[in-house]
């Protein structure tokens, strides 16, 4: 998850560094674009599968994945209007925003991964029979992914 996002950040920062003079720097410019492409496309299935694996039970999984995709597509609206015409050929707004998105998404992914690892560690410390005595099955199902028996997928 973090590696593709890292590639996006690297790619866009190279392009911004070229400051619009693409004719002279075709090689690095193109290389940077390809890096960003390599970074962008794996992120979508990765995020979707992460969402689906870390929600329980199946009702919440369905709602969660639909919600995820809805909010995610709002990014498409932003993306279509990012590159303003009057800023050719530098496009600082467009590339800058893309870089910012890549960076913050990277931070978000790292935070999530750490929180999942922490959650898993906390659950390993608990003993299963104790947990079953404390809560009934109904309550465990209600708690969904906060239940002590649920294991987060990294």
């Amino acid at each position, binding site marked *: 998850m973090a590696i593709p996002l890292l590639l996006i950040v690297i790619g866009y920062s190279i392009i911004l560094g070229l400051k619009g003079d693409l004719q002279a720097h075709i090689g690095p410019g193109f290389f940077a674009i390809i890096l960003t492409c390599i970074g962008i496309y794996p992120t979508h299935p990765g995020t979707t599968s992460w969402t689906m694996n870390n929600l329980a039970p199946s009702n919440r999984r369905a709602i969660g994945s639909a919600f995820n995709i809805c909010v995610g597509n709002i*990014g498409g609206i932003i993306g279509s209007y990012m590159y303003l015409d009057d800023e050719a050929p530098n496009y600082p707004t467009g590339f800058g925003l893309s870089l910012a998105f890549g960076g913050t998404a990277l931070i978000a992914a790292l935070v999530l991964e750490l929180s999942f690892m922490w959650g898993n560690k906390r659950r390993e410390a608990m003993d299963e029979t104790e947990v079953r005595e404390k809560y009934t099955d109904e309550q465990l199902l209600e708690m969904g992914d906060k239940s002590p028996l649920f294991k987060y997928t990294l």
Partner: protein
Amino acid sequence: MPRDLATRIAVFYCFSALSGAFSGLLAAGIAKMDGVGGYEGWRWIFLLEGLVTVVLGVLCFFLLIDSPQLSGKWLTQDEIRYLELQHFIKDGGEFKDERKKTSWKDISAVLSNWKMYLLAYILLCQSACSYGLSAIYPTIAFSLTNPNAQRYQIYPPYLDERHGLQGHQCPAHDRPAVRGRSHLRHLLFGPVRSLLLAHAVRGDSAAADCNRILHHPRPQG
């Protein structure tokens, strides 16, 4: 069945990628209907493609079945039983019918989960970058004045990555011994193709020919 799952998902995603390839051609064809019935060409594109989508959407409601028992013709009894057991285990030990319908509590539980928002944010960033890239890519491509280079930009290299990754990798993943090989193949070929393209862009015709052969293995013309 799980051993076919990756292949099926790959086929699904390949169709979506192929639709991107065909959409340009289809739009060019429909655009020739300019003036028919008083509508411009671009309106016809929306009308026809939208109509097909809506009809298929409605049909989905009737054609997609709700549970493995109703599948009837294409699954054997053993496979139906296997799928039911799988659902039983994944739902945490309860049959789906026994549980009550989606309640507001479920929805609020999802919406109040801070992790959901972070995950949705990652997807937001990714789609913003992706749409922005497809907007800016033609500008970058046509800023290259070398006519050879412009010709090769028409088939963006990253689509190749996607096709390659999905079409080859997922069936390979179903056969465990071959998994590593396909990963390696794509790790090697991806950068090689990109490098060749970068050279082609600078007018190196030998690199351009190599690239053409890699992209289109069958003879052209």
